[in-house]
């Protein structure tokens, strides 16, 4: 599903990723961990094509990132659900619209959108906040809206960047449960987190980054 081979990403003066090689199969649930600044978010950005690799090749669902035409990027992204570390909610739209926008972009009819948005909100325990605007939500609530937006489109790949950083134990457990369910239905999941508790006893695959290097790849 996703294959990196010798991928290097350099920002101005810093090498965020150095010769990273790994591949993730369809339906896998894989954690990416490492300290702050290790390169976790950068790795995810390369997958959703927000950044281009400086060296090496990336293959996503059969598409080679080098040879991808710019006009087909939107269509590729529609198969990817993303939980951004900084949420990226639209501050001038309420919770409903923030989630619905992911479907509207795909041209899903409005009636179907309504059902699916409400279902997603129910999953993250935020049905009572459907009309709130982002700045009326607590940090954890915003994070859950972002999660709902990422999963509402039934993506084939889910990229979650520190999705539980602002959530308490119970909410985190709830989110993990949802992710496991989605994964069971066939969605490939990449989950970047610094919180080792989340995968300690799961037996799932864990990629560990440190200073841009892939230092371990265990489990799975």
């Amino acid at each position, binding site marked *: 599903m996703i294959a990196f081979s010798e991928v290097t990403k350099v920002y101005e003066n810093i090498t965020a990723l150095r010769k990273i090689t790994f591949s993730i199969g369809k339906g896998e649930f894989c954690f990416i961990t490492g300290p702050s600044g290790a390169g976790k978010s950068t790795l995810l950005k390369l997958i*959703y*094509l*927000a950044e281009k690799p400086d060296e090496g090749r990336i293959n996503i669902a059969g598409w080679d990132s080098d040879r991808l035409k*710019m*006009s087909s*990027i*939107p*269509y*590729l*992204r*529609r198969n*990817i659900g*993303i939980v*951004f570390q900084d949420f*990226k909610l*639209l501050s*001038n*739209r309420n919770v409903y619209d923030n989630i619905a*926008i*992911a479907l*509207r*972009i*795909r*041209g899903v009819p*409005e009636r179907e959108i309504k059902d699916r948005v409400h279902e997603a909100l129910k999953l993250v325990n935020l049905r009572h906040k459907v009309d709130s605007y982002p700045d009326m939500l607590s940090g954890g609530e915003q994070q859950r809206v972002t999660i709902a*937006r990422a999963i509402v489109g039934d993506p084939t790949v889910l990229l979650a960047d520190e999705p539980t950083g602002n959530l308490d134990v119970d909410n985190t457990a709830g989110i993990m449960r949802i992710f496991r369910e989605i994964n069971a239905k066939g969605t490939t999941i990449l989950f970047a987190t610094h919180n080792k508790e989340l995968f300690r006893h799961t037996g799932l695959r864990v990629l560990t980054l440190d200073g841009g290097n892939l230092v371990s790849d265990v489990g799975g």
Partner: protein
Amino acid sequence: MYSVKLGLKSLWRERWINILSVLTIGVGFFVLAVVALLLLNLELASRRLPEKFTITVFLEDEISQRGILRIRKMIERATVVEKVDFISKEEAFEDLKKSLKDSAYILEGLDRNPLFPTFVIRLRKSAFDREKVEQLIKEIRGMRGVEDLVYGEEFLGVVSRFRVMIRLLSITLMGLFFVATVFVCYSTVKILFYRRKEEIEIFKLLGATGGFIRLPFLVEGSIIGLLGGLFSGGLLYGLFEISRRYVAGGVPIITGLNPVLTVVAILPVFGVVLGVIGSAIAVGRVKF
């Protein structure tokens, strides 16, 4: 389509900034329209100038009716001629008396009518052409039965220079004002665009196509343009009505602004066009 609805919604969501934009564009259009109308009417007025220019042809005292007819036909054939009037000796004398007004008594001592029968040639206002006029003058001078000919040789030059100047000025000023207005439109949309950079970034990451991103801006731009156009049209019409009603007899420079209602009607259309073009330029190519 949702993308269109997005534009409409965003119009309402950011209504305050949009109202500012509409007013800015409206004022720009209004200024443009007023200046355009002033210049257009100045141009029209200057076109009417040569109409007032006449050539006076004095005929020989003893000319026959046939001779008069022959000369008249000759003159009428020229393309620059609008109208030819014949004034008999007697009529000419009456005219002179009138033009002397209070000094007319000086004619009292005259024992005979010293004037000639004359043709007064009015030149056509459109297609005013100095060379052709001079050509005509030369021809008339050469005709039999023509005693003398009076024409404002200098005035002729002044008129055509004035025309050229007015036209040059119109074009320059109109150009400048047009650029200014387009510029206000463009910067208004560009500012809207700047404000929404973050939103666009998010849209792209969620898989929106270029069209989906661009369309709301075009919708918004066109509506802002439309409203700006309507607003300026309203202002113009208001100015027109006020000047017509409250200024004694109307301010001719405004009430005389000929196609004021046409311009009022055209402004919104103009607004939509500019809004769309401005938006398209402001959004530019969408990169992923």
